[in-house]
């Protein structure tokens, strides 16, 4: 089985650092290093964590008007995306369900730069290529690695190597020369912390990784802590909180459907999105604080106070920064108000839970310098 797993350019570095490697999205990836998930999580919240996210797909969309073409399949407003900026969007099916969530940037003049989920990338590229045929092309950037540097000390660390990064704010994206190579840097990430994602050529990845780790404020962090960090940040995870049956509106991702796009209604699934934006929803995302007992994980049922099942947890676990379990799930809108008392059913036992605001841990994005 392990022979079938792909390796990122940082595989050897992970093994050398004592990482526990697990299969993830078809790759052998580090789930944790020697310190373990809890310490790695807290280190990222206090200092700077370095993540290998090279399993994610990186691609260029090029064409006459790549943004206009891309809007056929993705919900966000890309024609209005200014050079140097990045935007979150969702790839939709004809029913308004989410095929994938992705980040799209204009780091330079070379069309759009897209980052998609590792487990979804082959399907995404096939859909994009098919829908954009004759207008735009999708080129996989298989020869690039992607690193994420996240945490309150990330900006100071990166500024020493990439001076331009200090002038960027949240969701800025820039093509720069850094570490002696062509890099694409965006001030973004998926932990709720300030931080950056850094795309570099694969053959420079290990050198960049080691250069950043040479700073004592930086430690390598595995996918285990990446998941607990994103959960605390209230960020949905594709394949868990998002799938082809869930619409971005149900998932609370209204911002991923641009204003210009709502007015035009010119994309796949627009009918359902418009209906749901008008309030016709049967389920919505809820964020739960579990008040007693065990963590409620994916698949646990959500019940009302009387014990009637009303929904399901789509991801959940223990929140290291908070010291109690939290969960993301779906329930009818009548149960979604903050403060609503609910139950989660874990191994047959009903435990008290409460709907709380998202994010669970306040995010620390730097929106203004």
């Amino acid at each position, binding site marked *: 089985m392990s022979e079938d797993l792909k390796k990122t350019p940082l595989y050897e570095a992970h093994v050398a650092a004592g990482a526990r490697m697990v299969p993830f999205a078809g790759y052998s990836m580090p*789930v944790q290093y020697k310190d373990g*998930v*809890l310490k790695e999580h807290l280190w990222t919240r206090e200092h700077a964590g370095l993540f290998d996210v090279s399993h994610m797909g990186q691609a260029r969309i090029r064409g006459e008007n790549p943004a206009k073409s891309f809007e056929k399949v993705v919900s966000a407003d890309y024609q209005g995306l200014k050079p140097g900026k990045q935007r979150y969007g969702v790839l939709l099916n004809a029913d308004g369900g989410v095929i994938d969530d992705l980040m799209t940037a204009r780091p330079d003049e070379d069309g759009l730069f897209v980052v998609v989920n590792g487990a979804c990338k082959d399907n995404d590229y096939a859909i994009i290529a098919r829908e954009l045929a004759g207008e735009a092309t999708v080129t996989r950037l298989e020869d690039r690695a992607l690193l994420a540097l996240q945490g309150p000390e990330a900006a100071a660390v990166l500024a020493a190597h990439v001076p331009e990064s200090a002038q960027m704010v949240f969701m800025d994206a820039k093509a720069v020369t850094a570490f002696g190579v062509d890099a694409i840097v965006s001030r973004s990430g998926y932990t709720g912390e300030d931080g950056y994602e850094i795309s570099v050529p694969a053959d420079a990845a290990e050198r960049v990784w080691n250069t950043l780790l040479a700073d004592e404020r930086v430690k390598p962090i595995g996918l285990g802590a990446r998941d607990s960090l994103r959960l605390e940040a209230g960020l949905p995870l594709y394949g868990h909180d998002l799938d082809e049956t869930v619409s971005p509106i149900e998932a609370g991702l209204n911002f991923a459907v641009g204003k210009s796009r709502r007015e035009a209604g010119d994309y796949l699934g627009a009918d359902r999105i418009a209906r749901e934006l008008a309030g016709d929803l049967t389920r919505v995302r809820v964020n739960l604080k579990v008040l007693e*007992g065990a*963590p409620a994980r994916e698949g646990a049922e959500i019940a009302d106070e009387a014990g009637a099942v009303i929904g399901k947890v789509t991801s959940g676990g223990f929140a*290291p920064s908070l010291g109690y379990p939290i969960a993301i799930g779906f329930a009818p809108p009548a149960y979604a108000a903050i403060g609503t008392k609910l139950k989660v059913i874990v*191994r047959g036992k009903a435990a008290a839970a409460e709907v709380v605001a998202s994010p669970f841990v306040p995010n620390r994005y730097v929106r203004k310098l």
Partner: protein
Amino acid sequence: MRFTKDHEWVVVQGDVATVGITAYAAEQLGDVVFVEVPEAGKTVKQGDGLAVVESVKAASDVYAPVSGEVIEGNTELSDAPETVNALPESGGWFAKIKLANPAEVDALMDRDAYEAFLATL
């Protein structure tokens, strides 16, 4: 101390077995954040689910290494689940079971056999 292939340990005093998970298991689980221990009075058969240990990432079952009646669960683990990582083979015990069939203990691995078993993993 005797051991199972599922990485539980048993220490017998008189007709009572104290049960926990091994240092190897605790290390594999990572940081334990929640433990569900059985209540006194519950009867278990060898191989039944006895307790549940949760790390940040996942929930894992702990199986009863011996049959009998639970006479005490380690309720201190509710407030201090991290004891399972700190003292897996002492203070991090899960339950005390009054043995129904002491011969079950003799069939479990001793320390040398368990370590030889670990070396095969």
